[in-house]
Structure formats: structure tokens, C-alpha cells
């Protein structure tokens, strides 16, 4: 999901950079106030942990393998502000040391995975956890949030690529989102298994009653909420409702000299029949999938939550 350099245009890079600087500033301000001094080294160690955990490969069918992304796991373990800081550090090191993910696209990557994945995932996790109390709610919330964060990040990546004129929304949206709906399932499974493993050995590290580094204050909820919805409004909404508008924008962005030669009408007619159904189908599949995954998360939470942890609540 790391966007390399060369895929985004100037205004997309600028907008995402501004959004992630805003999110990071919010997170740092909260941490400066609430983070105890003795937990400062933990931020660096947690970032190193995410990097090391991403190297461990989980076998999938046919010799392929997947790995943890970790945004929701870190948000559940350390809280939203710390998650933004830790994931930002991970993305910076991945970019500057390993050239994984672009340097100019760093803002987009931090926004998609760190801020939306971390804070957005945490918000979903807390909502579910409020519905289902106790350790079972932790597992269910983490599973659902992990899946959602992968899906939302994929939608954002698709929007950013489409607005930059790199690929058409009708192609990039189904391709990115369908793949990541599946990746999200793996991410949810790994997140749940890791959380259960930690619940078994050190349950005090995941205390559903007292979330790490404090719950979000109203001001922060408004701040993060505005950043995330601004991102969605900028990169997704142009395509979501009036799709030909999006096409025109994309084509206009590309700045084809020869585009004037072909009149727009036949092109739209040739594209629309099969293309307009693809995003719609993907959106429908996404909606149905969300409900299914929510139910699945509930079932999984019933099955895998350690009994001792359930009894002790």
C-alpha cells in the first residue's frame, strides 16, 4: 500500500503533506501533555517492533505470504496519538533507509496508513468496544477495525491515484479495493491472533477499562475528524457521486494535447457501459462485506477470546 514516488501530482502531494503534518502536530501535542517520560523510549521500540513484525511472513495458499500492517494493532496497544507517531516513524525509516514508499509521497503514505489507519481504526475499535464490553469487545473491535482500516486506506490510495491522473478511478478503485478487502481479512486475523496472544501472557498491556495514553478529548476528536473527512472529501468524493465529472477532471489533469481531437462524448459512451458498473459493484461488495466482517468479527471474538480473561471481568 506504500505509494512510490512518481505516481502523485503536485497538488495531491501538497494536500496530503498538509493533512499529515496537521495530524502529526495534533498527535505530538497530545503526547507532550499525556505521555509519561518513562514511556518515551517505548515509542521508538514500538516503531522498531512494527518494522520487525512486518518482516515475519504468514504463509497463505500457494507459496504466497502476507504480513502484518500493524496500524490498528499499535493503536489498540498504545492509543491513537502514539499510533500516529509510531507509524510515522516506521514510514519515514522505510522510505529513507529502504526506499520503500516515495519520499515525496511520504505525506500521502503517512495520511493513509498512519492517520486514517491509526486514528480512524482506533475510533472504529472504540465504537465496537463500547457496544461489546470486556476482552471480547477488544478482540471484536480490533478485528473489525483492522479490516476497515485496510479498506479505507485502499479507497484513499485509489482516490489519490485517480486525482493525480495516474489511473482511472473506474479501474483503480475496484482493483485496489477488492484486493485490500481480502488483505484486510488477513490483517484482521493476524491482529486478533497477536492480541489474544498478548491477552494470554500480559493482559494488563491491553486493559479495556483504561485505554493507553488516555482517551481522545473532544477537541482531538474534532481535529482528527476534520482531517480525515477533509481527506475523504478531497480524494474520494469527486468520484463517489458524479462520476463523469471525475473523468473530466482526470482527463483535464492529464493535459493531453491530442485530447481535443477526440470529442468527449463517444469516449464517455465507450467507457461507461462496463466501467460505471465496476465502482458500483465494488461499493456494493464493500457494503455487504462490511456487514459480513462485522458478524464474522463477533463470531471470532466469541471463539478465540481466552476464557480466563472473560471470566475475570
Amino acid at each position: 500500500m506504500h505509494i512510490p514516488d512518481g505516481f502523485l501530482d503536485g497538488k495531491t502531494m501538497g494536500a496530503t503533506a498538509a493533512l499529515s503534518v496537521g495530524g502529526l502536530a495534533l498527535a505530538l501535542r497530545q503526547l507532550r501533555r499525556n505521555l509519561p517520560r518513562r514511556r518515551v523510549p517505548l515509542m521508538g521500540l514500538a516503531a522498531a517492533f512494527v518494522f520487525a513484525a512486518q518482516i515475519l511472513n504468514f504463509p497463505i495458499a500457494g507459496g504466497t505470504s502476507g504480513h502484518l500492517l500493524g496500524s490498528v494493532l499499535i493503536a489498540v496497544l498504545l492509543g491513537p496519538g502514539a499510533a500516529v507517531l509510531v507509524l510515522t516513524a516506521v514510514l519515514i525509516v522505510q522510505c529513507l533507509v529502504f526506499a520503500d514508499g516515495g519520499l515525496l509521497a511520504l505525506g500521502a503514505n503517512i495520511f493513509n496508513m498512519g492517520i486514517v489507519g491509526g486514528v480512524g481504526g482506533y475510533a472504529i475499535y472504540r465504537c465496537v468496544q463500547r457496544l461489546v464490553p470486556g476482552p471480547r469487545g477488544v478482540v471484536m473491535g480490533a478485528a473489525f477495525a483492522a479490516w476497515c482500516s485496510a479498506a479505507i486506506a485502499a479507497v484513499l490510495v485509489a482516490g489519490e491515484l485517480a486525482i493525480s491522473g495516474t489511473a482511472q478511478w473506474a479501474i483503480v478503485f475496484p482493483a485496489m479495493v477488492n484486493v485490500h478487502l481480502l488483505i484486510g481479512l488477513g490483517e484482521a486475523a493476524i491482529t486478533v491472533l497477536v492480541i489474544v496472544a498478548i491477552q494470554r501472557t500480559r493482559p494488563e498491556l491491553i486493559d479495556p477499562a483504561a485505554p493507553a495514553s488516555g482517551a481522545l478529548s473532544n477537541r482531538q476528536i474534532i481535529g482528527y475528524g476534520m482531517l480525515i473527512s477533509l481527506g475523504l472529501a478531497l480524494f474520494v468524493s469527486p468520484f463517489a457521486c458524479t462520476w463523469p465529472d471525475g473523468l473530466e477532471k482526470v482527463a483535464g489533469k492529464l493535459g493531453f494535447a491530442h485530447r481535443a481531437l477526440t470529442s468527449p462524448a463517444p469516449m464517455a459512451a465507450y467507457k461507461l457501459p462496463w466501467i460505471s458498473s465496476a465502482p458500483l459493484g465494488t461499493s456494493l461488495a464493500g457494503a455487504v462485506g462490511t456487514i459480513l466482517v462485522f458478524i464474522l468479527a463477533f463470531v471470532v471474538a466469541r471463539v478465540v477470546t481466552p476464557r480466563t480473561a472473560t471470566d475475570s471481568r
Partner: protein
Amino acid sequence: MPFRLDPHSRIQSPVHRLPAAVKLAAGLAILVATVSTPKAFAPVACVLLAAAVLSRIPPLFLLKRLVLLEPLALGVAILALFQPHGGRIFALIVVKATLCLLTVILLSNTTPFAELLRVFRRARMPALLVTTLALMYRYLFVLIEESERMRRARACRTFAEGRSRAWKSLAVVVGRLFVRSTERAERIHAAMCARGWK
């Protein structure tokens, strides 16, 4: 063998001796030029080639890194093919992405990360972020080796394992790694305090 991500960042060469801030600024300028106009491709390629030769990094190593990272870019670039004039956009993006990749690979392999951190600190990056980056880089290799040890220990004790068992035991390794990281962070904090960290 210790795990290294940037094995050539500490060899001696004219490029390595340049100040980190200069290299970072030059790298950013090259990236911006590459991304903004196709006219920059030829000069940028010449500059990168010169830098690669001067830096005395084995060309095979650069090529290997490029081949390792290129598929990630190609996977997304293929989506660009499905549109009017897709072939041209595809070619543009692939050239752009390759030049950018080479720039960042050269930057990371001619500049030790610690020097980049010093540049960040001077550029007034928030102290908490710099500390986090520094500790992350310092303990990255330690934790990777630790997880590798745990994985090996598990492999030694398991004759044959199905996929679901593999997932479960790998998840235990990851969970254990997090617990060990928190414990290590506490010890590091004590050590930092003992050395006068305020």
C-alpha cells in the same frame, strides 16, 4: 551475520563525504524535477549515473535493490494502462518511478541515517519524533534478530505444522516480541536516566 539495510552507507567516497543536508536537498530537488516534467529525465539520469559511479557502491548492489523494489511500482503502474493513451502514461510513470527509486536508494546508501537525523534536528523537527526515529533505527536490528531467534527456536521444536498452527505460533512470536519490546523500553529508560537524560 547482522542484518543490515544500508550496508554501503559508511564506505569512503566523494559522495559519502558531502554533508548530509546537501545530499538531502539535492535528492529532493532531483525528485521534484523528475516528478514535475519529463524534460528533466535525461539530465537527472546523467546526474544519478555520475553519483552512482562516484559513490563507489557496487553497481550490482544498486541493480539488485532496484529489481527488488521495482515490482511494487510496476504493480500500480499497470493500472495506468487501462485508459486512453495508457501506454504513454505507463511508460512515463515507470521512468519516473525508476529514477525516483534510484535517487532514494543512492541517498540512503551514501548517507548514514544518524546524519539525516542530525539534519532533521537542526531543521527543528519535533524532539519526540527525532528521539523516536533514533531509537527505532538503533533497535530495529536488535528486534529483527530477536524475532529471528524466536522464529528459529519455534522451527527447531516443530516437526511439521499446518497453516493454521503456523499462523497461531507466528502470532505468539509477534505478541511476545511486543511484550519484550515494552520490557526493553523500560530497561532503556532506566539506562537513559542513569546517564543523565532529563
